[in-house]
């Protein structure tokens, strides 16, 4: 859901960066509390994820480094720092530390009921906030300057969206793990983008795709042993994306190709028609018949295209002769006019 905003804001890789940046937060939270309570750990992850996000933004606005560099930088630096802390923790005499690295790769099966409730509640809050601030989010997304001139506090809205993205990522970490979280954020949104141009439908579709890939992925991974849940979910989501890329009616590759071929055929048809028009022009009677042979010198001509012209009632065929009809002549001359107009 929130992924839609990330994709449209061109911050797709932010998810990746945040999910890595959350690691030191988890480790620090553990170091401070010394307990493996998932709530405090999530809080730590949230805080360090937010710090990472705002540092990224600081780098982009204050220096000439580009966003990709900033992302990669924060991602690897935070993660490395997190690793340092994790290995440091491992050396500590604390029996609780085992399983902390589960956060790295995630394991949906280890979730307990309270975690699920927490997720449900946070999802509910996300939905609510999104409904309340729908208009503001949408406007900021597509025209930030306009929003500012209308007097909205863009900074606040911006921080709100970012915080919720971070929150969603941190929660998802437990399920699919650091590496695959970015795919969970992106894939449904990218798939949904192909089907619609409307934001509300896109958000809805993304949620649907996400839920489906979650359900299917879990089902597949449960049906076979030794399959971890996270990667399967991601692969299912990837299948959705590929499917959408190829088959979406307006943007998909398949239909684009079909449209391309169709356009080319139309063009050839027009070429033939224009050629005929130029011949017919030289005669007083436009319906004067000519042999098909003279068309053979011409590239656009095939028996098929000629037949199509007949179907459209532009041309009449009589044995080896063809002649333009009244209608065909008018269409052709209009075509010619349009072309010259286009040239001007």
């Amino acid at each position, binding site marked *: 859901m929130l992924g839609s905003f990330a*994709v449209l804001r*061109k*911050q*797709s*890789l932010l*998810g*990746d960066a945040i999910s*890595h940046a959350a690691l030191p937060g988890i480790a620090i939270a553990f170091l401070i509390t010394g307990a493996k309570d998932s709530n405090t750990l999530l809080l730590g992850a949230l805080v360090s994820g937010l710090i990472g996000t705002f540092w990224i933004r600081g*780098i982009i606005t*204050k*220096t*000439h*480094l*580009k966003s*990709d*560099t*900033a*992302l*990669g*930088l924060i*991602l*690897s*630096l*935070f*993660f*490395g*720092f*997190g*690793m*340092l*802390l*994790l*290995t*440091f923790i491992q*050396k500590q005499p604390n029996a609780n530390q085992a399983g902390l*690295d589960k956060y*790295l*790769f995630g394991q949906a099966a280890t979730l307990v009921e309270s975690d699920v409730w927490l997720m449900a509640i946070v999802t509910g809050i996300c939905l609510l906030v999104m409904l309340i601030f729908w208009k503001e989010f949408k406007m900021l997304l597509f025209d930030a300057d306009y929003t500012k001139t209308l007097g909205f506090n863009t900074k606040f809205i911006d921080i709100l969206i970012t915080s919720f993205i971070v929150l969603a990522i941190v929660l998802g970490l437990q399920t699919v793990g650091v*590496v*695959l979280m*970015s*795919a969970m*954020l*992106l894939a449904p949104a*990218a798939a949904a*983008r*192909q089907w619609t141009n409307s934001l509300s439908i896109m958000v809805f579709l993304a949620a649907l795709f996400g839920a489906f890939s979650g359900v299917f992925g879990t089902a597949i991974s449960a049906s076979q042993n*030794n*399959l*971890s849940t*996270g*990667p*399967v979910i*991601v*692969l299912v989501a*990837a299948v959705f*994306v590929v499917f959408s*890329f190829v088959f979406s009616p307006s*943007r998909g*590759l398949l239909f684009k190709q079909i449209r391309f071929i169709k356009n080319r055929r139309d063009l050839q048809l027009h070429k033939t028609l224009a050629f005929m028009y130029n011949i017919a022009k030289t005669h007083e009677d436009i319906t004067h018949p000519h042999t098909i042979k003279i068309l053979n010198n011409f590239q656009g001509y095939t028996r098929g295209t000629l037949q199509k012209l007949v179907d459209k009632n532009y041309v009449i065929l009589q044995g080896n002769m063809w002649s333009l009809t009244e209608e065909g002549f008018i269409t052709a001359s209009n075509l010619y006019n349009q072309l010259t107009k286009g040239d001007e």
Partner: protein
Amino acid sequence: MSSAQIEIQLIASLVAIACAIPGTFLVLRKMAMISDAISHSILPGIVVGFFITQDLNSPLLIFLAALTGIITVVLVEYIQKTGLVKEDTAIGLVFPALFSIGVILIAKNANDVHLDVDAVLLGELAFAPFDRLLISGVDVGPKSLWVIGIILIITIGLLLAFFKELKVSTFDKGLAASLGFSPAIIHYGLMSVSSVTTVGAFDAVGAILVVALMIAPAATAYLLTTDLKKMLGLAIGFGVFSAIAGYWVAHWLDASIAGSITTVLGLLFLVVYLFAPSKGVIAVLYREKQQRTEVSLLTFLLHLRNHSEENERHVNHLNEHINWQKVRSKTVLELALKNNMIVINNDIVSLTKKGTLFTTQAIDYIITNEDSQIEGMKDDFFLFRG
């Protein structure tokens, strides 16, 4: 220092140099995230290579992994070319999918071998010296030292051979193409080098550290200089420094070497980010403040020039009329006084000759829209900057 310690530091330094060179170009070409994608997506290549050879040390593994790295780049570019999604989304879609395939392959088929995800992602430099390379029974040094050494030599060789081409195509693609270099070949060459470096380095230091070593030194160097050669040199210097410093931090904390090298890199970047002479945050903030005061000064002088009435030129009037806070108007007044642009008699401000001249010229520049000239003018007139 034992010989193992020296070897670890040597390996880390070599990796740092090998990463810094392609990293610099990746950062300049705005493709830094590609290195992250490559480092994740080489996993399936390694797994498949392992199935074929059943040997973790085979060179085929490196070759296949590098191949997957290049496949990643090609896939990302293909998706991007369809125009359906933006480049960053394309990257974000491709590498988790490939990584998932790798994870699943491992989980299904290779559970019993030493090829777990942790090792791939994180690496363990501390064990590198134990993996010796034996040539006809003679111990010639750690294996990863040789691997990374060879990669480094190749990288440096390529860099020297194609430095001019790389430079031109990085900064001006059009010029490079018109001069007859194929940008595509250089692009894929760079990508191949990055893939091979990532693969060669990963089993010594792990994927994440590779990314950090590629991006962080280059980014840090970029903040300090705009000269490509200096940037390369600085990046290598930062890389080696943090490799060695990181090792000792890890030694002292008894923690992961890869992690502590990254942390040192992070600290280095933070320091440079804050204090870099012309591009650091503090320098930028200072310059912004300076410019704000100077713009205020100009506004103030214009106001004085437009009003000859005494009540408009009263010191206290500033606060009401231009709506400035007390502190601000005080700074502006002091700056103007210091620069001999105004005189104050009985709290009435008036322009000096110099002030009038400055204001007139400033108006000229503003009207002709040549804002850039104002800086030079400021140098001529200002004794003290804001």
